[in-house]
């Protein structure tokens, strides 16, 4: 199969399948072969689901032949982070204590994709327990450190490491990831792909490993904003099996947003000129220039001073320690790969109920104080992450000395705030620094994904960063 096929958009792949220029079986076999050959280079694979994939692909071909069309994803292979249950294959949560765990049911997000005819080709690697307890090294995974297709000496980001590298290297056309605090946006940024963290409650978490019941989200990791829109439409929707479900469905329609020129963007120059690492600043300057032509109205905004990181950290620590209480108490937690993470989970078990409640009380306050911001601006724009990818051997806990920190905090806490408040965010590539991708993110109010997808698609019409291919073959 020509290499170009692996880099086609979902719309283009759908056209090839519906016109029967290729079959789903051919496409799936080609991706499986690519996963098998290249996946280990990036430590991207948890398990290939070859047998069920070929059966699903044959079924898709049969339906397409009989004109039983199920939409744009029919017959297209995908990968899923290994915290999503799928019968017949292990679901390891990226962690040794769960290396042989299996479930006899499907995660809702995978089930929904299969209803649209998509073909699960692989379970993808991840940071152990989605990073619960916080980890120090990229090697905090049953599968080894996630390696970046743009330079495999560098980390692919976490915790959806395999989803990020597999999409970047076109081992799958799209993947599912999950985010509690940064786990879709970070690997999307590091790997130069387009990732969407949906509004909390839009996508059912039934069959997904919980880390924080009040913060976990599942979302698409793709090669373009348009692809993210199609995948979110397929996986969203109410589900009584998920207590956090918003009971709403998403319909992809960037045209519903109207003229982008009527929107107002909120941003803070200090994020791009002060907090961003030096090699990325000129990249961001060029990206902002493109964006300012698309949306002329910009306002400087700053988050009010509240302890966003401490609230998010306390909520995740307390809920995560409760989720994993059994393995912490019985000692299986010691089988994890990262000693910092083991100690973190043990320490979190001692958090007091009053401290957790204090965090949740301040979280309510944050919601009251920040929600009005979206009356003044429609979209917030900031760097996707503070720094560039680090080499896989580096400690992830090194921080910038206080003397080098800017005086203003700008929107530096928007990742913690956005995750606490369930805001959707889209990360997309906006250039390269030192040969590695740089990501920019668009954030908006809950259930307004079309707005950030429309801006993302417009940006990707003006630039070609999302079409660049890493040096993989």
């Amino acid at each position, binding site marked *: 199969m020509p290499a170009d096929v692996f880099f086609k958009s979902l719309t283009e792949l759908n056209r090839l399948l519906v016109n029967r220029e290729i079959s789903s079986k051919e496409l799936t076999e080609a991706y499986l072969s690519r996963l098998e050959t290249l996946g280990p280079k990036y430590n991207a694979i948890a398990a290939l689901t070859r047998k069920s994939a070929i059966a699903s692909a044959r079924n898709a071909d049969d339906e397409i032949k009989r004109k039983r069309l199920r939409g744009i994803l029919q017959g297209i292979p995908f990968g899923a982070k290994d915290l999503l249950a799928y019968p017949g294959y292990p679901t390891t949560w990226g962690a040794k204590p769960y290396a042989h765990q299996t479930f006899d049911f499907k995660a809702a997000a995978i089930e929904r994709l299969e209803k649209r005819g998509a073909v699960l080709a692989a379970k993808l690697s991840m940071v152990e327990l989605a990073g619960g307890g916080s980890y120090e090294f990229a090697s905090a995974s049953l599968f080894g450190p996630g390696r970046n297709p743009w330079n495999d000496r560098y980390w692919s980001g976490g915790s959806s490491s395999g989803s990020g590298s597999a999409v970047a290297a076109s081992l799958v056309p799209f993947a599912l990831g999950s985010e509690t605090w940064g786990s879709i946006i970070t690997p999307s940024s590091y790997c130069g792909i387009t990732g969407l963290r949906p509004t909390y409650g839009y996508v059912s978490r039934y069959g997904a490993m919980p880390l924080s019941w009040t913060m976990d989200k599942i979302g698409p990791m793709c090669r373009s904003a348009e692809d993210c829109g199609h995948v979110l439409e397929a996986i969203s929707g109410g589900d009584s099996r998920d207590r956090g479900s918003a009971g709403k469905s998403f319909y992809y329609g960037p045209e519903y947003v109207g003229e982008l020129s009527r929107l107002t963007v909120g941003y803070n120059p200090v994020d791009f000129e002060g907090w961003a690492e030096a090699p990325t600043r000129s990249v961001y300057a060029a990206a902002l220039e493109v964006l300012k032509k698309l949306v002329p109205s910009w306002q400087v905004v700053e988050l009010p001073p509240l302890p966003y990181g401490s609230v998010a950290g306390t909520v995740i620590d307390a809920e995560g320690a409760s989720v994993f209480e059994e393995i912490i108490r019985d000692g299986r937690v010691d089988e994890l790969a990262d000693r910092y993470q083991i*100690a973190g989970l043990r320490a979190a078990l001692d958090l007091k109920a009053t*401290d957790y409640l204090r965090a949740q009380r301040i*979280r*309510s306050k944050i919601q009251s104080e920040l929600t009005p911001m979206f009356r003044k601006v429609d979209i917030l724009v900031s760097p996707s992450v503070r*720094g560039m990818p680090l080499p896989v051997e580096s400690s992830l806990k090194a921080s910038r000395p206080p003397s080098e920190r800017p005086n203003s905090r700008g929107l530096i806490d928007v990742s913690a705030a956005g995750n606490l408040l369930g805001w959707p965010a889209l990360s997309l590539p906006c250039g390269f620094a030192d040969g590695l991708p740089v990501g920019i993110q668009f954030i908006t109010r809950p259930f307004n994904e079309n707005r950030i997808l429309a801006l993302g698609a417009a940006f990707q019409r003006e630039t070609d960063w999302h079409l660049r291919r890493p040096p993989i073959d």
Partner: protein
Amino acid sequence: MADKSGVVRCSRRELASLAIALAPASLAAQQPAASDSDLLQRRRDGIAGNVASLEKTPLTPADEPMFALVLK
């Protein structure tokens, strides 16, 4: 890159790359071996730091916790 005073300034990433290039074995393997009890204490201190930061935010009895994230 050197500034006017001749001081070489590197980004955190550049420093990390340099350190790895100079190191014969992986940095992870060379981490000073903090004992498990030291590491546990370090993590407890981190959590206590978060809690201390939360305590600086004034609350009244009317400030209710978010028991579930409800979005409209």
